């Protein structure tokens, strides 16, 4: 069977956890903007957590199914329709032949992913299904999925056990600004005591200049000791480089190296939340220890593992009862 992209949406691509092993050659990691959304969607449809998915940024695509397959949409709170009937995110559904899935816009959030209980018949490029448009890498020649694109599916599981139990309960309400936990960065000493206080004690606003490479943050100037420049050095997801104009938080398609001091880096457990921020959203940074970061990630992993067990478990009662 196959799926057909009927409408492309704003920026619809195939992604996975990213293209590891080539960053030393300047090739960006790329991958799903929200690794957590990718993992949740894959768990919902019984896939390995880093299985390739379709990612939508902005208005999503319309996808037609040629046969039965299960799917789930996770990430921002996108409005999703199956045959024009609204359906939920964070829940597994079963599509049948001629069904039409439509991902409309999102009142909150930047990206979502669609996982299918099947494998895409698409080539991996340098070991990954991640798409990076700038470097032209990815299963669709590094491009967006355009209207008319047909993706063959194989290893299709048309039904899954415990369909009624396959959902994640709604998250906590939006507090108006997001606190992101960070670990002090490798160039923290480039900033004065005052500069560091400015960073941790003030709110910053996500600028309009924010995309898959990075989010520019508007806020008070952060004082350095001797300027922002460093000898160019490697970067990672969540690293916050402070340019003379503004801090920039590195997202999945960030340049592999940079020449500005890194004041802090967002912890893995909060990176996916950060990736959903939109222009105008206000954020604060809270410094945590490496141990706290590791504990937060352990908790997140334990939650995902519990869900995975719950979805595949034999028996009646679920832990995520409504």
């Amino acid at each position: 069977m196959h799926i057909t992209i009927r409408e492309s949406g704003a920026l619809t691509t195939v992604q996975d956890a990213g293209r590891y092993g080539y960053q030393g050659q300047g090739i960006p990691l790329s991958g799903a903007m929200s690794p957590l959304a990718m993992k949740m969607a894959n768990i919902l449809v019984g896939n390995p957590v880093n299985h390739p998915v379709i990612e939508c940024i902005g208005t999503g695509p319309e996808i037609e199914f040629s046969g039965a397959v299960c799917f789930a949409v996770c990430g921002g709170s996108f409005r999703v329709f199956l045959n024009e009937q609204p359906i939920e995110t964070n829940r597994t559904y079963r599509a049948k032949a001629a069904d039409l899935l439509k991902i409309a816009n999102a009142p909150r959030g930047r990206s979502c992913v669609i996982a299918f209980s099947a494998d895409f018949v698409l080539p991996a490029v340098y070991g990954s299904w991640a798409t990076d448009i700038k470097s032209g890498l990815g299963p669709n020649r590094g491009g967006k999925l355009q209207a008319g694109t047909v993706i063959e599916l194989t290893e299709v599981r048309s039904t899954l056990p415990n369909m009624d139990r396959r959902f994640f309960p709604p998250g906590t309400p939006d507090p108006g600004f997001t606190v992101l936990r960070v670990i002090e960065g490798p160039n923290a000493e480039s900033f004065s005591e005052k500069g560091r206080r400015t960073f941790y004690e003030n709110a910053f606003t996500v600028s309009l200049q924010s995309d898959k490479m990075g989010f520019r943050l508007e806020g008070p100037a952060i004082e350095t000791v001797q300027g922002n420049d460093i000898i160019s050095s490697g970067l990672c997801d969540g690293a916050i480089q402070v340019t003379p104009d503004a801090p920039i938080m590195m997202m999945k398609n960030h340049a592999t190296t940079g020449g500005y001091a890194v004041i802090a880096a967002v912890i893995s457990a909060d990176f996916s939340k950060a990736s959903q921020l939109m222009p105008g959203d206000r954020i604060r940074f809270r410094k945590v220890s490496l141990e706290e970061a590791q504990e937060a990630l352990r908790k997140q992993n334990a939650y995902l593992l519990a869900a995975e067990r719950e979805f595949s478990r034999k028996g009646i009662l679920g832990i995520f009862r409504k």
Partner: protein
Amino acid sequence: MYEFVIKPCGDAALLIQFEQKIEPRILAEVTEISRRIDEAHIPGVLDRIPAYATLMIIYDPDRISFERLQKRIRDLQELPVQTESAAGREVHIPVLYGSPYPEDLKHVAMHAGLSEEEVIGIHTAGAYPVYMIGFLPGFPYLGNLDSRIHTPRRTRPRTAIRAGSVGIGGKQTGIYPLTSPGGWHIIGLTPVRLYDPSRSEPVLLRSGDTVHFHAVSQAEFESIEKSGGALCI
């Protein structure tokens, strides 16, 4: 090996920091520790980004902890230095000087108080170590540009510089591997593809290589371009 510090960069990456200087001896150390980590096949290590005086290691915190990885790196640091280190390659890059922006070569010559031929002579006489690859896929940071042709960047950067453009920006010279915005003066164009996602090895240059430029004619340029911009090393 020289001393370095290991610092976390978030909880899924760490940075090995040497003395913060641009020097061949420090680059050699970065290259050496990067090679040792590569050959140690440490489970959970996902990627390495060598730079002038740092090596970033990207790791999977679900598979290895910062503490454990730090210990493994310190153990590798203790290993005796091998007498023969893998030598970098000598890479010859053909350049059609004065193309596609002849005004830039003119500007560099004027700024240096030299003729265009003299600028080309100085640029082709140099041997340029690749210090690191970054910024764009396959973009080489080259050292050793002759100070006589150092030229401040353009006051108004171009929005799109053609792939293969050979430029001078301040004290640096380099080659744009793909079409990109940029503020360097473009003194020539190479038909060699520094980055080609259809190749099994997408990126031509590696840190530790030495680049030599040599001038070619329009006809030679076209013949290399027709053959696919490949380069035998």
